[in-house]
């Protein structure tokens, strides 16, 4: 809930004492709305006003940190239901689960595979965020051994999964002050787990089972016991239920009307293979703050992390690369010159296809405000004027004396105009799809004999 200036004004002392630096309380209230001043600039503000304004200024979904230091994972603090309304902010954290019945080698291999996974994509390093250690043995010693092994092997923050307070206490000790996420509290163990979480300053998963109303009520009770960092674990019966539970929790949290819902959420995806991946996709799209892959195959990682990267980009700010001339391979003055827009995905597709062709080339990237070729063309951002200007500005007539420019097939219609604007240049129409670039370069360019 966002308060208006007038609503804030009513909560102020209305003394017009000017001690805040403003002429009137109303003027101060307006500055508060614009977030240009802090409430504590008013020496006379009441506790009631502090409480109300504090609640209104807190994010609708709490930001919860797991782990410590550089690899700390932060989830929550989302503000919208649909990414186009603003953006999603704290990426769905991806956790890979191991259990304490695994042999040391099997556990080690799984952890190594997850922790070592790292791929660079669109200028970002894609990695697994968390390791979840599940207690299935019922024996605190085994759980401790598994937790210790994982810690020894990788620096990723942990999720400790056990309903058994004795095991959890032991596991938490083995985690040694690294603020693992404790999963989780239910109606039977709430007292002990809440005490453990508070003592360790660790976040706690609320997992009482039942409906999301039961879940919210239970989370509110945990908060009442002094647990601040809570993660909600709905227990859906199937895919449709999962979507309903996570959607309703997000909605209620954003409406701020339902106590106990303003927390991040966690989804456990049982099963490996394709089905597990499909469920994880649903979780990433629709409101899971953390997705735990119970039995992942390593080939899950790349598509899921790629999806997460896309869904969590800021839709108002398309990923852009810097305009300019890019040299791909050992391009020489006689190498082909292609042009495209500065939308990063367009750039990555085109450049990767040129690389695949193994024909060194120049790629002119023009500033089309980060739009793809077709979109930019439709919006008038990728037209003969823009391209001609870039060619001249980059001095390409001397850098590539053959003065041949390959334009994307989708904008073939502009080739005549472009030739008019670039006297002396020969405009060649390349393929529509970047996937066809290798064939084009091999067949058309090589045939030119340049």
């Amino acid at each position, binding site marked *: 809930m966002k308060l208006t200036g007038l609503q804030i004004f009513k909560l102020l002392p209305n003394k017009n004492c000017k001690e805040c630096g403003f002429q009137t309380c109303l003027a101060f209230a307006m500055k508060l709305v614009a*977030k240009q001043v802090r409430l504590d600039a008013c020496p006379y503000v009441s506790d009631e006003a502090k409480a109300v304004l504090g609640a209104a200024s807190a994010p609708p979904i709490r930001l919860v940190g797991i782990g410590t230091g550089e690899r700390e994972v932060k989830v929550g603090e989302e503000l919208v239901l*649909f990414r186009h309304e603003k953006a999603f902010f704290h990426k769905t954290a991806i956790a890979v689960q191991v259990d304490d019945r695994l042999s040391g080698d099997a556990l080690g291999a799984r952890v190594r595979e997850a922790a070592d996974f790292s791929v660079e994509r669109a200028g970002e390093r894609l990695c697994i965020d968390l390791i979840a250690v599940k207690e299935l043995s019922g024996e605190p010693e085994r759980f401790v051994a598994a937790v210790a092994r994982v810690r020894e092997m990788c620096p990723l923050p942990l999720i400790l999964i056990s309903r058994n307070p004795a095991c959890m206490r032991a596991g938490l000790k083995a985690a040694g002050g690294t603020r693992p996420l404790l999963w989780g509290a239910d109606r039977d163990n709430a007292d002990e787990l809440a005490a453990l979480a508070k003592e360790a300053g660790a976040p706690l998963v609320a997992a009482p089972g039942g409906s999301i109303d039961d879940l919210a009520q239970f989370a509110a009770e945990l908060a009442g016991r002094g647990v601040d960092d809570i993660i909600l674990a709905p227990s859906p019966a199937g895919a*449709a239920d999962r979507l309903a539970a996570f959607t309703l929790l997000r909605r209620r949290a954003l409406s701020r009307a339902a106590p106990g819902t303003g927390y991040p959420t966690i989804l456990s995806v049982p099963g490996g293979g394709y089905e597990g*991946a*499909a469920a994880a996709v649903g979780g990433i799209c629709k409101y899971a703050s953390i997705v735990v892959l119970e039995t992942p195959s390593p080939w899950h990682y790349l598509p899921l992390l790629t*999806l997460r990267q896309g869904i969590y980009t800021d839709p108002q700010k398309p990923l852009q690369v810097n305009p300019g001339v890019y040299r791909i391979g050992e391009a020489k003055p006689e190498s082909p010159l292609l042009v495209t827009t500065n939308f990063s995905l367009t750039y990555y597709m085109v450049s*990767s296809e040129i690389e695949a062709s193994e024909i060194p080339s120049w790629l002119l990237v023009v500033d089309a405000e980060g739009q793809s070729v077709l979109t930019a063309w439709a919006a008038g951002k990728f037209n003969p004027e823009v391209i001609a200007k870039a060619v001249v500005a980059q001095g390409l007539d001397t850098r590539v004396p053959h003065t041949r420019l390959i334009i994307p097939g989708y904008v073939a219609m502009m080739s005549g105009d472009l030739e008019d604007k670039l006297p002396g240049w020969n405009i060649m129409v390349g393929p529509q799809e970047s996937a066809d670039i290798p064939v084009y370069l091999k067949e058309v360019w090589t045939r030119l004999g340049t």
Partner: protein
Amino acid sequence: MLLPATDVIYYTTIMNNSGASAINTVRIGNTSSEGGTRAFSIEVGGGNCLPFHHFEGTIPHRPVIAWEIPDVRPDDWCDTVKGPYLDFLGDPLRWARCVVDEKGARLICLDLRGARPDRENRSAAQSVELLRSILKSVPVPLIIRGPGPGERQNGVLTACAEAAQGERCLLASAVAEEYKTIVAAAAAYGHLVVAETPIDVNLCKQLNILISDLHFPADRVVIDPLTGGLGYGLEYTYSVMERIRLQALSGDGMMQMPFINFVGPEVWKVKEVKVPEQKEPQWGSRAERGVLWEISTAVALLHAGADLLVMRHPEAIAVVERTIDGLMKKG
């Protein structure tokens, strides 16, 4: 206690859909009682809520997957998706029969890519001949995808529309620069059209209006918002679909068409499905990576509102069908 320094707007849309607005129900295929020869027809759309929101609306029809059948040998297809079809590459008729008889396909998408001048340059007559034989021996409803914008598209699709008169096929695609011929053919011979626009809410609505200005019924139009594959613009398609769907549900009649996403063609051309394991060991098994790339793209689009998915790999299709079962509460 202080107010956050950044200008955070708690901006959110809480849907309060009364159920007054729904997506159009589009029926593909005519049975004999409807003037065609299909064994059954397929309905998509009709929902009055966001995708799979059974808790606040009704969703009468499940999303449907169409199996992509190329008219000529798809030499450019990635080997891992050609694999399951090795017996029929270049024999679209047997290919179509197999997916219908053995894989349970209920909808096929005949891709007339061979008519492209830069490919096999097949004539409209050749396309028609193939279409006639498929109509004769394959009983399911049909999507007919032309060779792509241009004169060839109009010639091929018009000839096919005439040859398939009364079958209520879905013709793909009408685009803003060139929609009249295809819409006229669909109107004259009793078909449906796909209205394709490049990932843009306003252009989408504009084309739908242009088509409706030709007095073509809105319930015979399907929106292609243009599909980006996973890692290649999927999130743009995803958000444009969500925006279109929200507008549709809030009462905009020019946005209430179901969606079609051409998933297969987008997914199977990207680097990630092609690069061999030796080159990128971390990416995992290439065969499985490709299938998963298609599944992930399709499932994300289902959550954004996809009603028709055109797909390639039988395993990916099977998994997405089961995912739809689950989302329709049947699994």
